[in-house]
């Protein structure tokens, strides 16, 4: 009768190895990029403009482009996403309509960024005449990150215990008062996490940016200017072999930004959770 226990031990080891490999890959990627890139990164790299198509100089315009583009995307996507999730979780019972909306959200989440790129290109760049611009790019990216925000906010709102709603209603609150004063504050950590994940997704996006915001290497001065984000810059440097050194440098900044954003989301979630529970 040793057999079942023996098998358990064997399987546990196999599964552990699989887990270890997965975690190792992650750390390897991060370590490898940082090891090669940190040498290039200094204040000058961050704050100066690229020279000679990026062969020399820094990545300042790309940092500005990345920030502005994600800001625009978030400002558009947040009200739409949070509004949708409030509607889905507070105002309707499960019905045909909600299942259609949910299905639409799932589909939107699955659509490849290249399709968003094509769409943004036809609609905003060509049809509405916005050209390759921050506005076209921001709108398109907003559509892409919308499902992320909807899903995380909806989950957060649903996880607010029903008895909070009942207490507020039984104290004579209207539905909207209850949502604003009790539900949203309690769901805030989850909602903010969703928004931050949206920021992370817009920072990493490449295909959409090339198709809708272009890749002009200048500091943008208006929403109608084209811009180049760090991801796009990195892609061009690496794929066209312009400068491996600066590619590593850009990737380092990208990875550090993503790490910081995730860590921040994590920290914020825990802080707010501690405050509201």
């Amino acid at each position, binding site marked *: *009768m040793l057999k079942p226990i023996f098998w358990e031990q064997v399987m546990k080891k196999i599964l552990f190895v699989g887990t270890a490999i997965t975690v190792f890959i992650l750390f390897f990627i991060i370590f490898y990029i940082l090891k090669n890139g940190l040498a290039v990164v200094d204040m000058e790299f961050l704050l100066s403009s690229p020279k000679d198509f990026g062969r020399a100089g820094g990545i300042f315009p790309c940092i500005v482009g990345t920030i502005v583009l994600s800001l625009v995307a978030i400002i558009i996507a947040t009200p739409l996403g949070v509004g949708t999730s409030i509607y889905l979780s507070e105002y309707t019972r499960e019905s045909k309509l909600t299942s259609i909306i949910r299905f639409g959200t799932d589909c939107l989440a699955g659509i490849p960024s290249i399709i968003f790129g094509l769409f943004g290109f036809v609609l905003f760049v060509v049809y509405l005449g916005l050209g390759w611009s921050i506005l076209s790019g921001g709108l398109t990216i907003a559509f892409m990150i919308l499902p992320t925000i909807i899903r995380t906010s909806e989950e957060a709102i649903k996880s607010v215990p029903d008895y909070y709603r009942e207490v507020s209603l039984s104290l004579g609150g209207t539905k909207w008062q209850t949502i604003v004063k009790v539900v949203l504050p309690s769901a805030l950590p989850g909602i903010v996490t969703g928004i931050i994940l949206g920021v992370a997704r817009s920072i990493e996006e490449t295909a959409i940016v090339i198709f809708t915001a272009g890749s002009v290497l200048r500091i943008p001065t208006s929403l109608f200017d084209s811009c180049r984000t760090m991801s796009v810059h990195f892609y061009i440097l690496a794929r066209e072999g312009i400068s491996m050194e600066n590619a590593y440098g850009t990737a380092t900044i990208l990875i550090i930004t993503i790490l910081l954003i995730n860590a921040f989301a994590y920290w914020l979630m825990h802080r707010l959770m501690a405050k509201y529970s």
Partner: protein
Amino acid sequence: MEYKIELVNLSVYYGDFHALRNINMQIGAKTITALIGPSGCGKSTMLRTINRINELIDGTRIEGKILIDQKDIYHPKTDILQLRKKAGMVFQRPNCFPLSVYDNITYGPRVHGIKKKAELDEIVEKSLRATWLWDELKEKMKKSALSLSLEYQQRLCIARVLALGSEIILLDEPCSALDPITTLRIEELLVELKKDYTIIIVTHNMQQAARVSNYSGYMLMGELVEVNETSKIFTSPQDKRTEDYITGRFG
């Protein structure tokens, strides 16, 4: 008299929380013992230390000894799988697996290495008959257990323990999800099973304890306040706290 189960200076901690305080208790073979007390008093914890299912909870620490058939079940060499086979458990809510009736009952025998169809069939019939389910379910072996009514599911859970070949049955508020008539039927079943098994039942319903058990233990905030023959507990409790509880000053 040799005791089937003995708890010796048993203490349980969840992290810093002292859940059971220095419990001493002896339980004889083929009796029904009821544990009563307000919620959070540690009765479920006590039940769950007897087949060591409590270890699933992180940060559980245990002091003292539990002897089953004079053997310390917390001894490092104890075969925990055999222990759980010997002391089967029925939970508060029926927890049939999302498998067929047949697969639910044969689950225990199969994990313990019984593979022959004929042997399994025999076990199924025997344990279903013992729980008065055979006539109703013999045509429904392939049906999902989750499609049965709650009562049948709970009886199936008891049948599952019987199929395992247990000697001890631990029941954790087995009737709390059931209606009065069903409750009475399960109680009758327990009294019947007492002939062959040692049964410990946790219940929040004092009348239930009074109806089915030979012995009752009253617990409060991790302590075993009083244990005695059931009739004595309910007619002449020794401890003021037991009396408070029985007369309904709690909850």
